[in-house]
């Protein structure tokens, strides 16, 4: 980029209200963080978070299956992408079928878009995509605070990395609440039945019209087991100027992701003959968005432990209590690992 272009980009960043840094409300847009694992196969039967942090795979009713992975194939300036590879095709598409990649954004992080006011700003969405063959999909913004008002635009995929820039119009209707629940979601529609694709794609904000969320004539990701889709560098900023992707350190992205999910370890040393109960506290690295759901993933040194379970749970820590049945026979360190999930 030339010096004048760099300066114009910086001025644009500042004018967009973020002081030139961290205006991207998408978290982990460069797909660098994958706390849950780097690959998950056989997906398509359930909605959830599987690989790259913050990216939700939404499905409804499809027989298609895929592998979702963090991949090293990425455009210049990036090291990772999120890859989808179809492993079971689904060419008999029932009305309600859907496959989407979704990132939900807290309402309180969207206030500077001034949505629902006369001074509302446009939404500048950009990302890089690639596939095994040409394809046309839909990117959509959905307003969870206002009965799923929505707006969508198509984008094209080729066999080379392509940067997509979409400017969604400002919405002067529907103020976003200032809270920690979902305000806006960015949905990438990869497969849709007529329930979402039976109408005409709505390219201006409006009340929920399911058939117009995707409209007709789009590619189905599940049309062939050859089908792949890669995406990275996802950015959503306020205003109509599309800025270069705002890179941040791995540590910064990880901390942002840990507001929604982390897997802390905890331990407690027990002496010989100890019986009764032991409590292990897991202090979260980052305060959670809300009280998280906790899953116990492992328990170390099980000598004399008769039962265990989560006893306390807040946005800052949880405590696991162990019942010691007949007394510890030696000096042991008890501990384990939990998963704390406060995703939207």
């Amino acid at each position, binding site marked *: 980029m030339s010096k004048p272009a760099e300066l114009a980009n910086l001025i644009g960043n500042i004018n967009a209200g973020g002081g030139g840094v961290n205006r991207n409300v998408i978290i982990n847009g460069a797909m660098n963080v994958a706390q849950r694992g780097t690959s998950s196969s056989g997906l398509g039967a*359930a*909605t*959830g978070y599987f690989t790259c942090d913050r990216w939700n795979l939404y499905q409804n009713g499809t027989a298609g299956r895929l592998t979702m992975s963090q991949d090293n194939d990425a455009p210049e300036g990036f090291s990772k992408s999120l890859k989808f590879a179809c492993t079971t095709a689904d060419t008999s598409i029932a009305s309600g079928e859907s496959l989407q990649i979704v990132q939900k954004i807290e309402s309180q992080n969207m206030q500077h878009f001034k949505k629902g006011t006369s001074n509302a700003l446009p939404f500048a969405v950009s990302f890089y995509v690639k596939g095994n063959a040409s394809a046309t999909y839909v990117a959509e913004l959905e307003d969870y605070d206002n009965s799923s008002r929505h707006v969508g635009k198509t984008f094209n995929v080729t066999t080379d990395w392509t940067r997509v820039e979409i400017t969604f119009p400002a919405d002067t209707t529907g103020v976003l609440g200032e809270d*920690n*629940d979902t305000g806006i979601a960015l949905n990438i529609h990869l497969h849709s039945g007529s329930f979402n694709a039976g109408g005409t794609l709505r390219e201006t904000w409006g009340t929920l019209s399911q058939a117009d969320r995707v409209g007709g004539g789009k590619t189905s990701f599940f049309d062939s087991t050859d089908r792949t889709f890669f995406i990275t560098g996802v950015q959503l900023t306020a205003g109509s100027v599309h800025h270069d992707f705002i890179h941040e350190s791995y540590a910064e992205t990880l901390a942002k992701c840990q507001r929604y999910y982390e897997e802390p370890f905890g331990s407690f040393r027990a002496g010989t003959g100890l019986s009764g109960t032991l409590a292990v506290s897991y202090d979260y690295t980052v305060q959670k*968005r*809300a*009280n*998280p*759901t*906790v*899953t*116990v993933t492992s328990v170390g040194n099980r000598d004399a432990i008769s039962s265990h*379970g*989560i*006893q306390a*749970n807040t946005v800052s820590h*949880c405590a696991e209590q162990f019942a010691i049945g007949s007394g510890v026979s030696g000096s042991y360190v008890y501990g384990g690992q939990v998963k704390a*999930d*406060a*995703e*939207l």
Partner: protein
Amino acid sequence: MNITKAQYTTAEKEMIKATIDDMEMFVPLDPSNRHYAEILKQVADKKLTIKEAD
């Protein structure tokens, strides 16, 4: 979200132990928690009952 079992962990109803997508999870009674919100939805739809604590 496939929820096959839900039970309060204590008589004071401080938390729910649930089996969600074949995983045992401890779900806080926080309306902003997505698992609790889904449990409430399924209870309202009469698809799920939260058992009292043992």
